[in-house]
């Protein structure tokens, strides 16, 4: 249903139009019925061609009629010689051109044209390309036409280089040409493939043999460096010329981008007291159906792995319990290996005598986790890009694409070093692009969490503290497997989500002065002893239910929560949380 602009008419004009429409309708219905009865009787003649032509001119979306027409044409092909067939199909192409003039976005028409072009004895691909050029000059975003052009290019074997030059011309004449940039993104990796790297794989699902193929656009890094540098220049020209057009910025982001990381076990943790092994992956996996093997002191274990919360079939963190007595004696040394057979990767962990717990991990720094939005090919390249975009930012201080790109580049180069500038840019961004200010707040929260993780790792402590930062959501909780103390006070959190259950080593939670009403994630945390939730929005006893699953919980501060006003709250809580000796209401 295409937008039709309102036009005022007089009553008389309305009446005349009505009569005209009634006449048309009669003719249409008669023709349609004639068509159907012919088709039903299996008649495939010239008259049928004419009838369908009449109808399709009025309604090119009547798919059944195109099918009938294809049957007629296929039949005629068998009874006419090649020259006659050529003529018939050429006439068909002319007919289609007139249909497309009426509605250049009709699926039926384009689909049929594709069919005809493929069957033409002597196709004229140059003519087809010229049709596309004309169509695109009227509407360069007509994706039907672009799709058709891609088909023509494929069928006629137009070299990729030529098509790339075609995009050069289009972009050269008008940088604001999103569809052209898109087309270019599909051509570039074909013409200038980058160095072969292991294909980014996505397997993690149930049957290991049925891996989803990488998306074609996962070939982020598959453009060779020399060409990449030329492309940077082209794109910079574009966004310097028109910084407000997003086409070039999206393309630039893609050029700077990088493929998915390998799927590895980033951390293995073992606790004598809980007799439990916890494993963190670099991305969510499904380890329930097998694939994750535990070997203890050379002996494979019959381990049953579960995700930290029943909500998750796919989770970065998996845990399993060892039979009682297996590792509880602190006098014994143990060696564990966790194998992830899906990806032929493993991690070892040694539990020494006298130690109650042990772990082995890649830090976020090791993995360059938070830089991985962008390619880390050469810091010098990124530095030079940052310089360019900074220059533009001086000329265009209110341009949001500029600000976003600078933030991106800064985080790729030095997240902690550029923290202050990044926060300042986010402030500006929220002002110049206020429609998305909530999203930017959330994005900024995420970056602040990342920085806190990095700082924590540099300090080599297990305390995660991020208070008074206007945090609205939590993320990267899979990086906090080893954290013992967490302070989230004075933020704007509304819940501790199920992912919070990944904090398997947590002993103390401080989350005062938020808006927390949901504690789903405080679930089966084996070491959790203290929880402080002063001045939140916990309103019912049911909200506190998850806490009952934490066996060691002894101190709970609920002051300033609506739930404290519930009748008999003390006795109810005593029943719900018997281990809590220290209850503050």
């Amino acid at each position, binding site marked *: 249903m295409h937008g039709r602009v309102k036009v005022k008419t007089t009553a008389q004009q309305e009446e005349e139009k009505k009569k005209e429409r009634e006449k048309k309708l009669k003719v249409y219905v008669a023709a349609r019925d004639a068509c159907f009865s012919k088709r039903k009787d299996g008649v495939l003649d010239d008259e049928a061609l004419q009838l369908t032509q009449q109808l399709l001119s009025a309604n090119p979306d009547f*798919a059944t009629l195109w099918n009938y027409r294809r049957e007629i044409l296929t039949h005629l092909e068998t009874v006419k010689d090649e020259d006659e067939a050529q003529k018939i199909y050429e006439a068909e192409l002319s007919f289609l051109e007139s249909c497309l003039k009426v509605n250049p976005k009709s699926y039926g028409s384009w689909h049929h044209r594709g069919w005809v072009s493929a069957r033409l004895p002597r196709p004229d691909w140059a003519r087809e390309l010229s049709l596309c050029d004309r169509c695109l000059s009227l509407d360069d975003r007509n994706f039907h036409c672009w799709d058709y052009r891609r088909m023509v290019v494929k069928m006629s074997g137009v070299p990729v280089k030529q098509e790339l030059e075609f995009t050069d011309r289009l972009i050269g004449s008008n940088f604001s040409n999103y569809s052209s940039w898109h087309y270019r993104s599909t051509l570039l990796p074909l013409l200038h493939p980058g160095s072969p790297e292991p294909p980014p794989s996505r397997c993690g699902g149930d049957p290991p043999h049925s891996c989803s193929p990488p998306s*074609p656009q996962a070939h982020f890094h598959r453009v060779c460096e020399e060409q990449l540098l030329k492309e940077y220049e082209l794109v910079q020209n574009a966004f310097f010329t028109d910084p407000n057009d997003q086409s070039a910025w999206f393309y630039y982001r893609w050029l700077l981008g990088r493929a998915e990381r390998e799927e590895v076990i980033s951390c293995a943790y073992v606790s004598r007291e809980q007799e439990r092994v916890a494993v963190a992956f670099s991305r969510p996996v499904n380890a329930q159906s097998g694939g994750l093997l535990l070997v203890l002191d050379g002996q494979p274990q019959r381990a049953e792995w579960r995700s930290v919360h029943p909500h998750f079939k796919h989770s970065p963190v998996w845990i399993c319990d060892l039979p009682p007595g297996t590792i509880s004696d602190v006098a014994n040394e143990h060696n564990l290996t966790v194998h992830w057979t899906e990806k032929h990767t493993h991690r070892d962990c040694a539990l020494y005598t006298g130690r109650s717990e042990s772990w082995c991990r890649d830090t976020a720094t090791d993995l360059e986790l938070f830089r991985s939005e962008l390619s880390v090919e050469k810091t010098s390249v990124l530095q030079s890009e940052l310089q360019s975009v900074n220059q533009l930012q001086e000329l265009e201080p209110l341009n949001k694409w500029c600000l976003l790109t600078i933030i991106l580049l800064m985080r790729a180069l030095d997240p902690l070093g550029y923290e202050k500038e990044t926060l300042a840019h986010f402030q500006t961004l929220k002002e110049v692009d206020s429609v998305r200010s909530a999203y930017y707040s959330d994005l900024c929260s995420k970056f602040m969490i990342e920085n806190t993780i990095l700082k924590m790792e540099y300090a080599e402590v297990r305390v995660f503290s991020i208070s008074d930062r206007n945090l609205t959501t939590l993320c990267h909780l899979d990086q906090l497997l080893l954290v013992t103390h967490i302070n989230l006070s004075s933020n704007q959190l509304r819940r501790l989500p199920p992912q919070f259950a990944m904090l398997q080593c947590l002993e103390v939670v401080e989350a005062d002065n938020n808006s927390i009403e949901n504690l789903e994630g405080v679930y089966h945390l084996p070491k959790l002893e203290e929880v402080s939730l002063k001045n939140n929005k916990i309103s019912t006893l049911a909200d506190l239910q998850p806490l009952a699953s934490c066996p060691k919980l002894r101190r709970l501060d609920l002051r300033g929560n609506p739930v404290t006003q519930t009748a008999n709250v003390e006795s109810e809580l005593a029943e719900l949380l018997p281990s809590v000796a220290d209850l503050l209401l």
Partner: protein
Amino acid sequence: MAEEENQFEEFEQIDFLRDRHVRFFQRTLQVLPERYASLETTRLSILFFALSGLDVLDALEVVDSKVMIEWIYSQQVLPTQDKSNLNRGGFRGSAHIGIPYSTKGPGVLHPYDSGHVAMTYTGLCSLLILGDDLSRVNKEAVLAGLKVLQLEDGSFYAVPEGSENDIRFIYCAASICYMLDDWSGMDIQKAIDYIRGSLSYDNAFGQGAGRESHGGWTYCAIASLCLMGRLDEALSPRELNRIRRWCIMRQQSGFHGRPNKPVDTCYSFWVGATLELLDVFQFTHFEKNRSFILSTQDRLVGGFAKWPDSHPDPLHAYLGLCGLSLIGEPDLKKVHPALNITQRAFQHLQQLQQTWRDNAGSCVGQQ
């Protein structure tokens, strides 16, 4: 125009004119203007827009449910005596082929009669909205008809005769399987492969591989994966974040479907619902979204248009309402973002499915 009239227009523009929209959909159900003749073959989908629209408005009482249900069932391709046409199963768009009216079997074999995947989808939704228990849906035929539409690459045709094939029909297929609680009608893994293959360099989905990113196709991709329960399996957290970013950038005032295109009412749902499924809809700007949608409201005849000062049509009227429902417009029912029916209709579906499971469990000799 006089000053007072302008002020009056402005005042009316902020108001949501519920009753006009109810009447708009009522008229849609009775008679459509001639310019809709080209949509004859997809008539059932227009019925869906009207019924679901009235459902969102909580005004289904104006509909004669019994009559509607009978008409919908009359579009079902019924198996012939010898069941030779099972792989043509599904629902037609309308009676335009000329099959004689019938809601009971056996069916009549006609060489060009078949279901259409989008009509089967909207037909089933419409039945649910009207409170039907789907007991007269021939599931065997529907699923058989669906199976033959899937290509090697995982995408679907709309009809067994052949048509264009792309991600839209994967969405229809996934919805059908979801509603019937039976995924034997499609190869899920192949569909996921096709969906992943449609992910474009700028982190949204095209109609197929190598094709341009678009809000509508992105909805089809994400909603399908959600219905299949495979969202986190098919897309990595980073990919999901990038998709969220592309979608969030579609809001100008309302939403557009592609960069550098004008905003259009229907994308308040297509992109809005995608953001809702990806858990970030709360970061959009509700006020600007609402203002735009209401600027396309037709104050005289009701309904919404794609742009201001354009004629309203059932599709934009329905999706405009859904867009408003997403931002919590008072007195509008909540919409299930993946299935695109009200939560009320969805709960009805859940109850039905529970009944089917209970019955299957209690059947002696099953399994």
